[in-house]
């Protein structure tokens, strides 16, 4: 347990640096709407809907590509990914993937997109320039959430049905480790220092805190019913976790395992993200078709922005 201290201290330092480098433009949220097969584009300053863009069937995952200022959307029932230009969000271009793309993430240092194929035990690699397929990694059962460390060294993938986290070395393309976590890990969040990772474990109702250097789970923190994904408030070092069946967001301290608050939101909260620019937490409610804004200091739900039917926003859905 002792080694957790330096890890989380550096986590907070890197977070503070990141927040100083924020862009001037208003951050935008790209919320996937499963029912109408589209994406709601929200200006997070004004709270206004800027556009609604048609994508593929049952859109779910979102990945912000800061290198090319574009947003990728996974369409699990269409076997495709759609891409939207963040500075001109008026239409989407789609390209074919495997049969069930769900979790999706971009590489911070390479022109690459990683797409977890839920039924195929695979993560496909696509170019973020011309969207061609570059290869794939073989994963475990039901690969779900995924994330890349900020230095571009490691790709972490939750093998949901294997209750573990796979670690792939992106420099060598080798499968480096499988780390046992809680029951059915789904969403994956990596701290800005790249050393600490969190999985939301759907069936064990907890969050695993994983030390990526030691390659082991160092803590298990209980949260609400059927946790789905998490977001790290990098300013304060607190983790916000959506509880699908609890209709709540748990606010926990990864350091002490303490629950600081339980925030009531709409039913089936799914995607969640912290905006550095806004210093707010954003949560999509799948049943209530909305994006909520939570104040990370007071834990108050401050704003509700209407989205389409079945809002999911699974992944990094804020362009900033």
């Amino acid at each position, binding site marked *: *347990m*002792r080694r*957790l*201290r330096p890890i*989380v*201290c550096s986590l*907070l330092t890197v977070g503070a640096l990141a927040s100083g480098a924020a862009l001037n433009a208003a951050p935008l949220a790209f919320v996937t709407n*499963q029912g109408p097969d589209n994406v709601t584009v929200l200006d997070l300053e004004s709270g206004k809907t800027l556009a609604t863009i048609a994508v593929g069937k*049952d859109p*779910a995952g979102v990945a912000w590509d800061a290198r090319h200022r574009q947003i990728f959307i996974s369409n*699990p*029932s269409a076997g495709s990914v759609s891409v939207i230009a963040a500075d001109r969000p008026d239409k989407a271009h789609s390209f074919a993937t495997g*049969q*069930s793309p*769900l979790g999706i993430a971009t590489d911070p240092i390479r022109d690459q997109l990683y797409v977890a194929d*839920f*039924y195929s035990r695979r993560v496909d690699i696509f170019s973020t320039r011309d969207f061609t397929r570059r290869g794939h990694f073989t994963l475990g059962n*039901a690969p779900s959430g995924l994330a890349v460390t900020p230095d571009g060294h490691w790709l972490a993938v939750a093998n949901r*049905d294997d209750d573990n986290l796979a670690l792939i070395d992106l420099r060598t393309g080798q499968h480096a480790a499988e780390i046992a976590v*809680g*029951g*059915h890990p789904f969403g994956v969040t990596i701290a800005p220092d790249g050393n600490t990772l969190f999985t939301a474990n*759907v*069936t*064990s109702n*907890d969050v695993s805190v994983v030390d990526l250097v030691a390659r082991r789970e160092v*803590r*298990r923190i*209980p949260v609400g*019913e059927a946790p789905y994904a998490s977001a790290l408030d990098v300013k304060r*070092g607190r983790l916000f976790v959506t509880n699908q*069946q609890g209709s709540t967001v748990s606010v926990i301290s990864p*350091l*002490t*395992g303490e629950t600081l608050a339980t925030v009531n939101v709409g*039913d*089936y909260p799914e995607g969640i993200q912290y905006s550095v620019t806004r210093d707010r937490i954003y949560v999509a409610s*799948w*049943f209530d078709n909305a994006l909520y804004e939570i104040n990370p200091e007071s834990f108050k739900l401050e704003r509700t922005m209407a989205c389409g039917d*079945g809002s999911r926003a699974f992944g990094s859905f804020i362009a900033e």
Partner: protein
Amino acid sequence: MRPLYSPRDVPALAEEFCMLRRFALALCCVLPLAATAHGPSRQKVEQEITIKAPAAKVWALVADFCAIEKWHPAIAKCEGTGGNDVGAARTLHVGAADGPVIKEELLIHDPGKMMYKYKITETDVKILPVATYAAFLTVSDSGDGSSKVVWKSAFYRSWGKANPPADQSDEAAINAVTGTLEAGLANLKKLAEK
């Protein structure tokens, strides 16, 4: 600035962590067959009905977890344990007393809000091809002597792999749930307006 953590908490936290792990391991051994594999897209069905009867009267008809055998036309018999406590169970016999069985568990029972939430713990895919199903049943006062009942459910299709057969597709699951909710609410209206 507050300290990031207090060193004296560490042994206690470590112990708590180990206990949690043992507990989790024990649970895994007890519940090996929980069906949790499912596809990537959860589905929802929400039905509501306006009833010309006060909310308190309607709630009285549905409040007991096992009262569903009295107001839902498809449920021939309900065997319940645990009353209306969280964790209470009901076994529903569909169509006839010896018909197919669906087992459910009570998650929330809130008479103040006239709402309960439950989940399906065991289904028969021939009649209800769903997985990880949970639903809320809520009665609200419309203010003019009438009431509104909302039944909202979320679930995955029962087929946990790609390419489902037609009778276990998303559409089949949605149709089965829609039919179940509609039939229940229509009959509840009939009973309450008598």
